[in-house]
């Protein structure tokens, strides 16, 4: 490289290197993201001896730069000379694994895990494992928390002496002074257990799990729940009862609602992990208790799992268990004092009908659906309505229609526009299930009323809803029921409503087809091109642009073009602009 001639190809790289220390974070970030380019230009030797030492010291930088760096280094093996030299990446990643920002540390750990696989068994013991030990015995808890995530990747590939050391280190971290480290250890316990030999799972992991599950810190105990689920999947059925169930039972009755919440939240995984027998004997009563918990958060989490839990019950006794144990609790939840609990239940309760079949649904579930449809909280009603399809398959929606209608009407007129918006979104689904006749009779007027709602978002959604209805019921239906009403609004004294006509035409022209558009809609649009409000006029231009593709070319040339040309010479600048745009898009110039 000693040649006196400068090398043009060096310039861009030189810029990238200089920008590694630019004052502007964005430029530094760009450079870090192109680190592989820099490394490639420097070659493997200089990358190892110069670039990596520099990067090791850059831990003062902004989080986003460090995050990008940690990510890059995970893909750097080839750039430092392949697996033989992969250990050169350890020092920068080690320093990144000790920063205070969790996202950066986690990314550094992720990259370390990735490159651990590229170490030869010898390098793993000579370089990687000592790093894990250093982190595990570091002064600051940031390094110790990072260590927790590295044990499981080196354990399977080291000698039995080193394995013993690793187990010892993990044990130490599980009883660390700081809750941060114990939390990290608890959250990695399941993963570590998976790579351990079964004998050590039974001897080591179980005692660590038991200890963490009775930690004084709530935040540690709740993480142990998840570890318990993973451990349960590893143990043979006959050991579960003695080794993990006492601890899990205790967690389900923990004094802290956060721990019980965690149990409720992980209930389906737990159910799968322990198998049908323990489910029947242990989990059913535990689940009942969670459904009756004194804390609403726990009840809501459990209520969310009702369907999944019931689905996964052993087939032979499923119906009996649901009818005798679960359904009574569910009935109570329907009239819970907390609306989050009720709405969590409402989002899954319809799913029970497929499990219980027609007769049970009609006899036992239907009254609950009906009660929830009348609930004071709109979210509960919405959740029921949004899941109507499950029931429809089992008993048909007619059973519900008498109660459904008042519920829908009430939601459609709710004072909160977000609630109105939500029900509009279910309209096409409901229309499909209730059939055109019912719709015309009961719901059509609602759909039209939304078009003149005072909130724009509702009018917009109502327009979109019309389009979906036409997709369902066909153009002929549209022509008879909604098109006349929509076009009627073109004469409304309120210009916002006149504009709604245009928006509806935009949405409907394609689904209604050429004939209806040309015969019924176009004349109205033309008429509106003389509207006194400029906003209406330029929306006419926009509408013409939009519906142009539906029309035949003759109509475009003889009818649309003159109107657009007239608008193009309008005195209002916006009208002109959109008219000209329409002319050029439709190629009418």
């Amino acid at each position, binding site marked *: 490289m000693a040649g006196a001639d400068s090398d043009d190809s060096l310039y861009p790289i*030189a810029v990238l290197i*200089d920008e590694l220390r630019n004052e502007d974070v964005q430029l530094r970030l760009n450079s870090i993201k192109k680190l592989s380019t820099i490394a490639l230009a420097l070659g493997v030797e200089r990358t190892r001896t110069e670039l990596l030492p520099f990067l090791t010291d850059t831990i*003062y930088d902004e989080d986003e730069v460090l995050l990008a760096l940690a990510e890059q280094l995970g893909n750097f093996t080839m750039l430092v000379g392949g697996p033989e030299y992969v250990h050169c990446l350890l020092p920068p990643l080690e320093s990144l694994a000790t920063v*205070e920002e969790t996202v950066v540390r986690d990314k550094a750990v992720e990259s370390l895990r990735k490159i651990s696989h590229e170490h030869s068994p010898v390098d793993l013991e000579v370089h990687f494992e000592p790093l894990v030990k250093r982190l595990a015995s570091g002064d600051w808890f940031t390094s110790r928390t990072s260590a927790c995530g590295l044990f499981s990747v080196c354990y399977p590939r080291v000698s039995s002496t080193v394995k013993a050391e690793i187990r010892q280190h993990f044990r130490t971290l599980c009883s660390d002074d700081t809750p941060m480290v114990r939390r990290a250890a608890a959250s990695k316990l399941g993963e570590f257990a998976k790579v351990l030999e079964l004998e050590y799972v039974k001897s080591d992991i179980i005692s660590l799990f038991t200890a963490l599950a009775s930690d004084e810190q709530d935040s540690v105990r709740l993480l142990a729940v998840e570890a318990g689920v993973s451990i349960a999947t590893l143990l043979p059925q006959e050991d579960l009862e003695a080794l993990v169930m006492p601890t899990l039972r205790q967690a389900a009755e*923990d004094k802290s*609602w956060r721990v019980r919440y965690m149990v409720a939240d992980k209930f389906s995984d737990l159910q799968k992990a322990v198998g049908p027998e323990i489910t029947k004997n242990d989990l059913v009563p535990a689940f009942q208790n969670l459904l009756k918990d004194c804390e609403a958060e726990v009840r809501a989490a459990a209520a969310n799992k009702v369907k999944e839990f019931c689905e996964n019950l052993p087939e032979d006794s499923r119906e009996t268990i649901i009818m005798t144990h679960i359904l009574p609790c569910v009935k109570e939840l329907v009239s819970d004092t907390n609306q989050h609990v009720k709405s969590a239940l409402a989002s899954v309760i319809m799913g029970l009908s497929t499990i219980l079949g027609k007769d049970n649904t009609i006899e036992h579930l239907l009254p609950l659906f009906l009660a929830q449809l009348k609930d004071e909280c709109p979210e509960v009603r919405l959740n029921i309505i949004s899941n109507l399809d499950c029931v429809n398959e089992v008993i048909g929606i007619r059973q519900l229609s008498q109660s459904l209608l008042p519920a829908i009407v009430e939601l459609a007129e709710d004072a909160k526009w977000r609630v109105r918006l939500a029900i509009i979104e279910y309209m096409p689904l409901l229309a499909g299930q209730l059939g055109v006749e019912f719709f015309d009779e009961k719901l059509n007027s609602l759909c039209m009323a939304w078009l003149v709602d005072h909130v724009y978002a509702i009018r917009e959604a109502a327009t979109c809803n019309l389009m979906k209805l036409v997709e369902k019921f066909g153009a002929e239906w549209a022509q008879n029921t909604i098109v006349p009403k929509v076009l009627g609004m073109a004469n409304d004294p309120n210009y916002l409503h006149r504009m709604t006509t245009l928006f509806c035409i935009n949405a409907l022209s394609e689904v209604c087809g050429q004939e209806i558009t040309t015969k019924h809609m176009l004349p109205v649009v033309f008429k509106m091109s003389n509207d006194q409000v400029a906003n209406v006029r330029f929306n006419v231009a926009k509408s013409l642009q939009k519906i142009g593709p539906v029309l035949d070319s003759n109509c475009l040339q003889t009818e649309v073009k003159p109107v657009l040309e007239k608008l193009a010479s309008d005195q209002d600048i916006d009208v002109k602009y959109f008219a000209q745009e329409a002319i050029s898009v439709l190629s009418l110039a």
Partner: protein
Amino acid sequence: MAGAGGGGNDVQWCFSQVKGAIDDDVAEADIISTVEFNHSGELLATGDKGGRVVIFQQETENKSQPQCRSEYNVYSTFQSHEPEFDYLKSLEIEEKINKIRWLPQKNAAQFLLSTNDKTIKLWKISERDKRPEGYNLKEEDGRYRDAATITTLRVPVFRPMDLMVEASPRRVFANGHTYHINSISVNSDNETYLSADDLRINLWHLEITDRSFNVVDIKPANMEELTEVITAAEFHPHQCNTFVYSSSKGTIRLCDMRASALCDKHSKLFEEPEDPSNRSFFSEIISSISDVKFSHNGRYMMTRDYLSVKIWDLNMENRPVETYQVHEYLRSKLCSLYENDCIFDKFECCWNGNDSVVMTGSYNNFFRMLDRSQRRDVTLEASRESCKPRQVLKPRRVCAGGKRKKDEISVDSLDFNKKILHTAWHPQENIIAVATTNNLYIFQEKVN
């Protein structure tokens, strides 16, 4: 046994340092509004009305000059909060730092939370002693090199430089409070903290700024029915699920976060029945609690009201185990203290390292040391007159009436503009930091 953090009245306190301007002309922005040692005592932070945070660092022990053992020197100064204006409510938001709380150390850097009335910020204070050198396209002084002369690539190298301390804002926890924040407290789980305003207490995760959980809400549906406000709140030092909050009615409520997500129902209520003989127009005002602090061991808590300090055993709700009068001689002066608004002053209190002595402030730049084991107390003064190095502080006495003895100060000559509201005690050693209006005094145990 200085290291044991014991001491009390056997300790002879001597002057060590005073920080801040000497002239009597006090700028409003310089008024110290909070003082706090970190967990090792190596750093001491103050916040002021101007929104600044000043951090002092204890000099490392110097064998040849043992008297300089505890010198604290400025380590970092930064502007934590700026004045703001809430346009929606037409309200000015002061930059005044209401509280500072240090986080347990997690790596080489130090972290603290600082708050004004509305916004809590997490600051990182870190050291840097290396900087990169070497550019490809320019000289170190910024002059550009001719791109044509580049024949080889240069990778920057880190070189040692003078130590630089940087303070950078890491998180801003905004929009969590409608009323004024009076307390922040970090949980022993090291991942959450609480913030309390007049009517609500919120729980935050240290890494999540866009949401917090409301755990206590005492706002009545109709604000005209408002009879009490939250005055202070603190987490238990070891039990992550327990916190207390004090009220303007003189009660302290202990809440267990395990029981339910919302802690509207307390699990313990600490309240002393009022002595009917002392009842007066001012009873309610002076019973308002201005500060509550758990002892380091977590067994006790201390509350400060206008005239007294009370120590409560967490296992006994009906009365405090100890009550100390701070300045009982003011009881006859309440009327004039009401007129000059002093009766609303919020005095704080603190424990020494082994919970055997407590300290709190008073007027006339007096502060009180209350020894629990010997049931003895002493009044000391932070003043410019006794600030010669290693000068021992003489106990002060206030004459409550009757004949004034020699060395006594008459109640009428007390200066109510000089008040010590904020004090802090080194977590291990007998070193205290006492904030007068705009000066920070550091006293320490006399070493013989």
